[in-house]
Structures are given as structure tokens and as C-alpha cells.
């Protein structure tokens, strides 16, 4: 890559990292998710900061067109992040389902308790629980 491309890449990555850090500081992003993005940023920083590293590595790996390595690395990391999100989403959905089911059961129990309470107190003008 040319020097100009390196500088452009470095600026972009720096902006992205600052953006992620700001999000974490404002608590819009959990630290555990930011780590994935920051590690992606770190890889990019190294590539941008060390001219010749990408070309050298690509040559070692037998990649003829060196920028392919950059795209390959980026894709691999993105894939990892996306799979991680699917995993988190599944877990989160399971928990939501669990909560919904427990809520239905508890709601019935509260209604029943309220009714037996009302019955025990006798007809003293108590409202039956509306749902």
C-alpha cells in the first residue's frame, strides 16, 4: 500500500476507536462488546502504523494481491463479531421467554392471592384485580 493509503487508514481507524470509546464512556455500549470492536481496531492500527507489514505477511502467505489480506482479516473478524452477536441474541431471547413464562404464572398467582384475600376480608368494598 502507498503511504497515502496508510495515512488514510490510520486516520479512519483512529476515528473509529475514538467513536467506540466515546460510546462506552456514555454507557451506550457495554465494555464486553466494545472489546471486540477495539480488537478489530487494534489489528487495523498495526497494519496502518507499520508500512510493509501487510505486504510482507501477504507474501509469506502466498497472497499475490496484498490488499486481499486486509479484506480477509477484516471479514474474519467481522464474522467472529457477528457470530458472537447471534450467540448473545439467542441467550437474551431465551431469558426473555423465561421471564414472560414466569410472569404469566406469577400474574395468575397474584390474582388468586388477591381473590382469597378479598374473600377472607369479606365484602368490604374491595376491588377485584383487573388485568
Amino acid at each position, binding site marked *: 500500500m502507498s503511504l497515502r493509503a496508510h495515512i488514510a487508514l490510520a486516520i479512519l481507524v483512529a476515528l473509529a476507536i475514538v467513536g467506540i470509546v466515546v460510546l462506552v464512556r456514555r454507557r451506550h455500549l457495554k465494555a464486553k462488546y466494545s472489546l471486540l470492536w477495539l480488537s478489530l481496531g487494534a489489528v487495523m492500527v498495526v497494519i496502518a502504523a507499520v508500512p510493509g507489514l501487510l505486504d510482507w505477511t501477504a507474501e509469506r502467505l502466498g497472497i499475490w494481491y496484498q490488499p486481499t489480506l486486509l479484506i480477509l482479516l477484516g471479514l474474519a473478524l467481522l464474522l467472529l463479531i457477528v457470530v458472537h452477536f447471534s450467540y448473545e441474541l439467542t441467550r437474551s431471547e431465551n431469558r426473555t*421467554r423465561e421471564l*414472560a*413464562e414466569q410472569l*404469566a*404464572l406469577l*400474574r*395468575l398467582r397474584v390474582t388468586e392471592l388477591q381473590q382469597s384475600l378479598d374473600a377472607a376480608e369479606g365484602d368490604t368494598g374491595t376491588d377485584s384485580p383487573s*388485568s
Partner: protein
Amino acid sequence: MQDRADNSNKVLIIIPAFNEHETLPSTLAELKRTVPQHDVVVVDDGSADDTADLAEANGVICLRLPFNLGIGGALRTGFRFAVERGYGRAIQFDADGQHDASQISTILAPLDDGADMVIGSRFAGVGDYHVGRSRGFAMGILRWSIQHLAGQKFTDTSSGFRSFDADMLAMFATDYPIEYMDSAEALVLACRAGFDVREVPVTMRERAGGQASNRSFRLVYHYLRVLVSLANTPRRTRTPKVATS
């Protein structure tokens, strides 16, 4: 639970219901007429209509899910309720009028004989229930894969007319398939966990109302999904029950 009478000899009829305004009252009336000795719980799966109110107006217990979980989630809620209240047996019954209340005794009978789960099958001889060609074909594929995974032959894997004993309920209360074709997956899950699953012939009516949850354009997607989850069903979590008698 704490303040409950002993329910271990009682049967709980679990009715998952999603927007069943049209058919629920007649289904509940039929149950009250035919099997008044059984308890009924309606699980309202986040209906947009007055399904839950109708259930309560008809004097049955109603569990209200805050949003739609799909049939699997509604059933699991029902199973949890059955376990929580200590019911010895439960029936899964459709709200849409497809199932015949007079046949509840038919699917309960094998439980006395040591079965853990009994499936009412439309295709095991009695009655003349017809499904469309594409559905019949899809059901055939499912039947074939289930036979291989469960190690047992079933003629009607998608039937939602089932009975369960306390052991089966205990497992399904924590571990019931939430994917689309829950009925087929539950069957495989039970078989692979070593439960005694049987099938009895029943007759069913054509749907009285409501909308069929099976749309042909979604069939391929759902079949792929169920095949993926079927292929990943865990094996042997329970040692087979020692044969009684």
C-alpha cells in the same frame, strides 16, 4: 403448591390459544360438557383479541403471556403450571375445535399402562382426516427423519392432541422445543431421552375456525429449521423406566 389440594390424581387440560375468539367458547363448553372432572387451563399466547377474557368468563384458569411466544412457549408455560400445581397428568388440547373431547379418555388410557406420553394420531386407522398434497408430502419427509432419530415409527408427528404423565411434564416444564414444529421435536426429544412414547388412533374434525398456522410458502423454511433442531436433539438423559407389570 402450598395452599393447593392434592392434584396428583387429577388431569389438567392445557389449551394454548392465540387469537381464538371464534372457537374458544365452544371448545370450553364441549370440555365442560364432556369431561367436567378435569381441570382446564388456557394459555393465552399474547392474543390481540379477547381470548383471555373469554377463557376467564367461561370459568377456566387463564395464564396470560405478555407477548406471543409461539406454541412451544405457550405449552411450556402450561407444563410449568401443571408441575407447579402437582398435576399427575396433563392433556394438550387445541382451542380451534379440531380435537374431540370425547376422545380424551382414549389418549389417557395408555398412561395407566406405563406410557409417559401418548399421541392422538389422525392416520393410525380411525377416522378420515384429509390434508392437502403438499402438506402430506412434507409430513412424509418429517415422518421419515423422525423415525430415524426417534428409533420408533409414528404415523402422525404433528398432532397436537397429546397426553403426558408427571415424569414427562417435569422434563417438558424445563425443556420444551421452542422452534416452529414443536410437536415433532418434542416427540424426538422424549424418545431420545428414554421416555415411553405411544400413539393411539383418534378422529379429528376439520378446523372450525381460526387460521391454520401452516402456510405453504413458509414450509421450506420451517422444515429446514426443524430438521436442524431435530438433528441436534440431545440423546439419553434419562434411563428407561423399569417396565411396570
